[in-house]
C-alpha cells in the first residue's frame, strides 16, 4: 500500500508508563476517506494509541505519519489539521454554546470566525439556544456540540474516542448519521467504540487488546480472517439448549440473540458433527450460516478477556 493513500500509517508504536507497556508495537494503516473502527475492551490502550497518533503523546518507540506529518517531529502541524474528540465531554460547561464554539475557533485562529460559528450553530440547529450554557445540554446534544467543535476548522481527519459512550440509542443513531455524512464528504474518521452495532457500520476494523493488535482489515473480511463456522439454532426452550451447547465438546462459542442461538467453532468439521447429531432429533431447527461480525467480536472479546485476566492492572 502506498502511504500517500493513507491518512494514518504507523509502525511499531510503543508507549510505556513507568514499567507498564500500555501499547506494544502497534501497526496500523487508515486509508483516506474511510470510517475506521477501533475496537477493544476497557484499558486495552485505545485512548493512548489515539493520543499518540494526533501528537498529544510522544511514543517511546516506533514511527509513523498522520496526514503526511511525522508524529514524532510535527505534532503541531497534526494538531492544526486533525479534529480530536475526547472520551469525556470536554467543553466548558460554564460557557454558552456560542462561547464554546467561538473559543475553539480562536484556538485555530480561524479567519472568518463569526460566520463559521454561525454556520456551525445553524448546522446543529442550535441558533436559538446559542446563549444557553453548554452544561445544561442533554448528553446527546453535548456529543453533537463536541463534534461540531472538532469539525469547526474543517479537519481532514477526525479522531473520535468513544464518542457515544453513555448516550441514548436515538442520539447514537443521529450521531452516526452525522459521521457518515462527514465521511461522504471525504473526511477520514477513526472511531473507537464498544458497541457492536457501531462496529458493523465501519469500513475497516482493528481490534486491540492489552496493548497489542489482534486483528485488522476491511470489516467484511474480519469473520473469514478469524475462520469461525457458525450454525443458527431455533426452537422451543432455547435456554435449556443454550446450557446444553455450552457443555458440548466441539462447540467453542455460544451466543444468544433473543430467541435464536448462534453456535460457532474454528473447527468446522467438529461443529458439523454436533449439528448432524442434533438435526436427527428434529426438535430444533438448525441452519448453517456464514459467520457474521457479531460472532467474530464475541470470539475476539472472549479470547481478549482471557488474555486480560492474567495481569490485572488496566490502563486507558
Amino acid at each position: 500500500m502506498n502511504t500517500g493513500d493513507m491518512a494514518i500509517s504507523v509502525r511499531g508504536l510503543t508507549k510505556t508508563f513507568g514499567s507498564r507497556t500500555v501499547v506494544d508495537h502497534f501497526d496500523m494503516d487508515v486509508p483516506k476517506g474511510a470510517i475506521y473502527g477501533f475496537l477493544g475492551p476497557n484499558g486495552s490502550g485505545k485512548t493512548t494509541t489515539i493520543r499518540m497518533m494526533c501528537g498529544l503523546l510522544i511514543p517511546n518507540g516506533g514511527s509513523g505519519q498522520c496526514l503526511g506529518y511525522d508524529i514524532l517531529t510535527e505534532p503541531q502541524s497534526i494538531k492544526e489539521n486533525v479534529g480530536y474528540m475526547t472520551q469525556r465531554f470536554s467543553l466548558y460547561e460554564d460557557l454558552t454554546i456560542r462561547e464554546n464554539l467561538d473559543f475553539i475557533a480562536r484556538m485555530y485562529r480561524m479567519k472568518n470566525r463569526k460566520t463559521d460559528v454561525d454556520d456551525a450553530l445553524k448546522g446543529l440547529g442550535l441558533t436559538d439556544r446559542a446563549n444557553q450554557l453548554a452544561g445544561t445540554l442533554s448528553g446527546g446534544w453535548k456529543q453533537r456540540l463536541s463534534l461540531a467543535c472538532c469539525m469547526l476548522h474543517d479537519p481532514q481527519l477526525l479522531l473520535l474516542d468513544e464518542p457515544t459512550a453513555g448516550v441514548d440509542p436515538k442520539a447514537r443513531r443521529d450521531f452516526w448519521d452525522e459521521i457518515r455524512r462527514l465521511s461522504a464528504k471525504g473526511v477520514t474518521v477513526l472511531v473507537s467504540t464498544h458497541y457492536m452495532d457501531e462496529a458493523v457500520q465501519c469500513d475497516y476494523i482493528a481490534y486491540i487488546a492489552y496493548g497489542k493488535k489482534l486483528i485488522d482489515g476491511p470489516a467484511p473480511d474480519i469473520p473469514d480472517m478469524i475462520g469461525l463456522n457458525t450454525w443458527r439454532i431455533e426452537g422451543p426452550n432455547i435456554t435449556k439448549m443454550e446450557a446444553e451447547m455450552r457443555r458440548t465438546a466441539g462447540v467453542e462459542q455460544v451466543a444468544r440473540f433473543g430467541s435464536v442461538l448462534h453456535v460457532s467453532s474454528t473447527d468446522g468439521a467438529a461443529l458439523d458433527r454436533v449439528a448432524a447429531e442434533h438435526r436427527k432429533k428434529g426438535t430444533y431447527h438448525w441452519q448453517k450460516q456464514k459467520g457474521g461480525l457479531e460472532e467474530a467480536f464475541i470470539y475476539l472479546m472472549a479470547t481478549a478477556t482471557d488474555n486480560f485476566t492474567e495481569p490485572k492492572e488496566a490502563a486507558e
Partner: protein
Amino acid sequence: MSFSFTRFGAVLFKEFVQMRRDRITFGMMIGVPIMQLLLFGFAINSDPKHLPTLVEMADQGPVTRAVLMGMKTSAYFNFQGIVTSQEDGDRALRDGSASFVVVIPPGFERDVVRGLAPEILLSTDASDPSAAGAAVGAISGIVDKAVRQTLTGPLHYAASAADPFSVTVHKQYNPEGRTSTNIVPGLLGIILSMTMVMITAVAIVRETERGTMEALIATPVRPFEVMLGKIMPYVLVGYVQTLVFLMAAHFLFEVPFIGSPFAFFAGFNLYIVVNLALGFLISTVAKSQMQAMQISFFTLLPSILLSGFMFPFAGMPGWAQTIGTAIPATHFLRLTRKVMLKGADLADISSDMFAMAIIMLVIVTVALKRYRQTLD
C-alpha cells in the same frame, strides 16, 4: 511555532467569562478580603485595655486612692471590685474573672510618708502574656506619677525621697501603639498570598479535573499561552485587591504611607509573581480541586504564623526563623511595613526583593520540571 496573541487572548477572555459566571468565587476574591480587613483591622488588638481588675486594699489613705485613680485613668485597668483576702484574689485570677489583682499593703501611705518605698503588688494572669504585657509595662509609671502628684505641700519631701526610678518608653513609627497600623500592611501580604496561590492552583486543576485540558491541548494552543492566559486575570484580581486595601488602610485605619510608591509597586509585583508560581507548582502536584485547596491551605498557615504577621519574628527560635525566611510573605511583610510606615525607598528594600527573587527562582524551577512530567 510562535506565540499567538489570538489564542492567548481567547484563553484570557474565556477565563474572565468563567470568573464572572462563578459568582461565589468572584465574591470571595473581592468580598472576603474586605471583610477580613475590617474584622482583623478592628478586632485584633495586641494592646488591650479595660482589663478586669480587683483590688485588695489594706490601706485607704489619699495616696492609695490616688494610685487607684491613676490606674483607672490609664484605661488599662477596669476595676471590678474589692477582695478581702489573698485567696479571693487568686480564685478570681484562676477562673478568669479578673486579669489583675492590685494589692495595697497595710500602712502603705505611712511607709510612703516615711520614705520606706513600700511595694504595691500587681498579680497578673500571665497565661496570655500579650494581653497583660502592655498593662504590666505601664503600671510602674502610672503608680509613680500618681504618688508624686499626691505628695505635695508638707509631704513634698517624701516625693523627692521616693525611689528616683523612671521608665522611659519610646515607641517609634507607631507612637500610639495602635495594632491596626502594624496589622493592616501585614494583612495585605496574607490575603494576596491566599488569593493568588489558591485561586491559581484551583483554576488550573479545574481544567484537568473536568477534562477540558485534554481537549484544549489537542488544539494548536501552546502550553505557555494557556498558562499566561489563565494566570493574567488573577494578577488583575490581585491589583484590585491591593487597591481596595490601600484605600481602606488610608481612609478607615489611617495607616500612613510615607515611603516610595514605586518601591512598593516593584515589591508588590514580585510578590504576586512568586505566589502565582507557587499556585502553578501546586497545580502540578494536585490531582483534584479539593487537593489543590488543601495544599494551598497548608502553605497559608506558615505564612500566617511564621512570617511575623501574627507573632514577632525576632521572638521565634532560630529554626523557626529559618523556615520563616523561606516564606515569601515574610519578606513582603517587611517590605510593606518598611515602605508604608518607615518611609523606605527601593534601596532600603533591596534585601527583601533579593530574597523573594531567590524563592521565586527555586519555585519556578521545580514547577517547570514537574509541569513537563505531567504533560505525558
